């Protein structure tokens, strides 16, 4: 047998890790995260049930009254809220990333990863890749439920563009929560922190209701709230309406969060003892 292939070289190169190795490492870690799901299928419950429950709740509880103010009853609200909920999917998954990673970080296997000659960002990239997959599944479920309650997809390319946009923003937000997951002591505090930050962003937005009737200061806030911007952009792309402002604000936030938080997360992960 060709045992020699396994032998480590006597002289180990100090060249930077090649991109192919990075991809291989990230792939191996993605496999790990996917195996977790296979081992524990219940971990998919949130991704599947969340869009079902939220769609049904909002459409049937608020649909009638908010729909009226939109000038078309419940059906008008379905067209309004489904793109909004899509904007929420990324946020929801991102929040879970922090708590999950915190637990993972405190397990012994992290020591092993950190003692291996791999780029330490791979561990984080893999986590984000798998969470984006979960988010896409949640989005697919949302669309199915949406169509069942009467959502009318008028623009397929727009639909795919909005899915891409929310995946982009979702992954940017995940860097923030990965950082929290690394620096905070317990999974509970990560969760509490996430709730405090996301609650106002989520409801002080155009996700669930138009912002026209909100007071001026809140309208100013929602205009640059990334969740609001993402919801507006998704709405414009999927069912028609203005897209540009929402699109640029979302892209700006996604870019800024990734550029600032990805290095911070990787650095914190690298240096945490």
């Amino acid at each position, binding site marked *: *047998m060709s045992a020699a292939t396994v032998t480590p070289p006597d002289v180990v190169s100090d060249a930077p890790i090649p991109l192919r190795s990075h991809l291989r490492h990230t792939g191996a870690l993605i496999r790990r995260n996917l195996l977790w799901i296979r081992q524990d299928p219940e971990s998919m419950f949130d991704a599947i049930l969340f869009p079902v429950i939220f769609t049904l709740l909002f459409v049937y509880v608020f649909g009638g009254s908010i729909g009226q103010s939109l000038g078309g009853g419940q059906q008008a609200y379905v067209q309004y809220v489904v793109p909004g909920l899509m904007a929420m999917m990324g946020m929801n998954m991102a929040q879970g990333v922090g708590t999950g990673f915190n637990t993972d970080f405190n397990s012994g296997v992290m020591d*092993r990863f950190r003692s291996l000659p791999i780029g330490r960002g791979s561990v984080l990239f893999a986590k984000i890749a798998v969470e984006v997959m979960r988010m896409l599944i949640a989005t697919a479920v949302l669309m199915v439920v949406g169509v069942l309650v009467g959502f009318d997809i008028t623009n397929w390319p727009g639909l795919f563009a909005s899915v891409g946009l929310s995946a982009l923003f979702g992954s940017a937000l995940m860097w923030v929560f990965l950082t929290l997951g690394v620096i905070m002591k317990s999974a509970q505090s990560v969760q509490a922190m996430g709730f405090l930050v996301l609650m106002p962003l989520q409801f002080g937005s155009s996700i669930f209701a138009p912002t026209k009737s909100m007071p001026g200061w809140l309208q100013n806030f929602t205009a640059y709230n990334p969740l609001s911007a993402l919801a507006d952009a998704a709405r414009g792309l999927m069912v028609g309406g203005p897209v540009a402002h929402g699109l640029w604000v979302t892209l700006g936030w996604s870019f800024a969060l990734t550029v600032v938080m990805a290095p911070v997360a990787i650095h914190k992960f690298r240096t945490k003892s």
Partner: protein
Amino acid sequence: MDMTRIDNTPRQAATGRSAVTVRGLVKHYGETKALDGVDLEVREGTVLGVLGPNGAGKTTLVRCLSTLITPDAGQATVAGYDVLKQPRQLRRVIGLTGQYASVDEKLPGWENLYMIGRLLDLPRKDARRRADELLERFSLTEAAKRPASTYSGGMRRRLDLAASMIGSPTVLFLDEPTTGLDPRTRNEVWQEVKRMVADGVTVLLTTQYMEEAEQLASELTVIDRGKVIASGRIDELKARVGGRTLRIRPVDPLQLRPLATMFDELGLTGLATTIVDSETGSVLVPILSDEQLTAVVGAVTARGITIASISTELPSLDEVFLSLTGHKASAPQGATPTNSREEVAV
């Protein structure tokens, strides 16, 4: 197929070259000096035992050497690579088995090993084969598909060791590899470690057990509160701490004190002070050599004292520490000889 030589060209055992060199290593956590200027050396192909109580700095030392944390001062090289300047190369030639199993509990055993193979840049085929081989070698083939969380403590440690061996490391760090294991499982792990050493791997092992150090290590470094308090070959250190202890329990408890006095007056070269252990009704005699052992037993027989039991014991960590830090282990008992005799008599 002989698993022990699967991955390496025969390695030179114990060449005298240093595989791990540590000079003045310091690591502080706030006020706590986890490492306070540690020096040590592990020669290639040998096992160094790092003995110390909880909180002595053993884990911090291993974490510094495996690049998990950065020391505040001092130098360390592993297999010729500097822990600060060449962490990436260093990581390629080490294996680490932590105090807490460093395997993914949710993944099956095989998947754990395959994943590490891939992370070490083995091609898929080789990673698969290596996982199969190591599961076989560590007798885990039957549990290959079960999540590691269902493994027993011993199986988990074996998987952990297997994971450390994937990359055929030249230096292996074992941080308290048998803490929390029952004696039989502990023995299993020792056997595995011995096989790795036979393959030529250099091992730095931390432990709280003198017995473990004696089983596995050829040299010993004793640390306490971040400082090295003794180091050398195991037999030398054992000589310094009194080697074995002979425990003699006479049938008649009234014979305890006369026995102790007799040994003290025996005048054997190097025989340390005997201790009267009134709780168990026995006399403890530190023994340095087989000759002394024979002489002591001979003296007991000559006196015609009937013995209920006799056994030899390795010194406990406490005794080792007391000896090395300059306090005689006998001091507490010796201070109250009258009391112990009275207790025995009553």
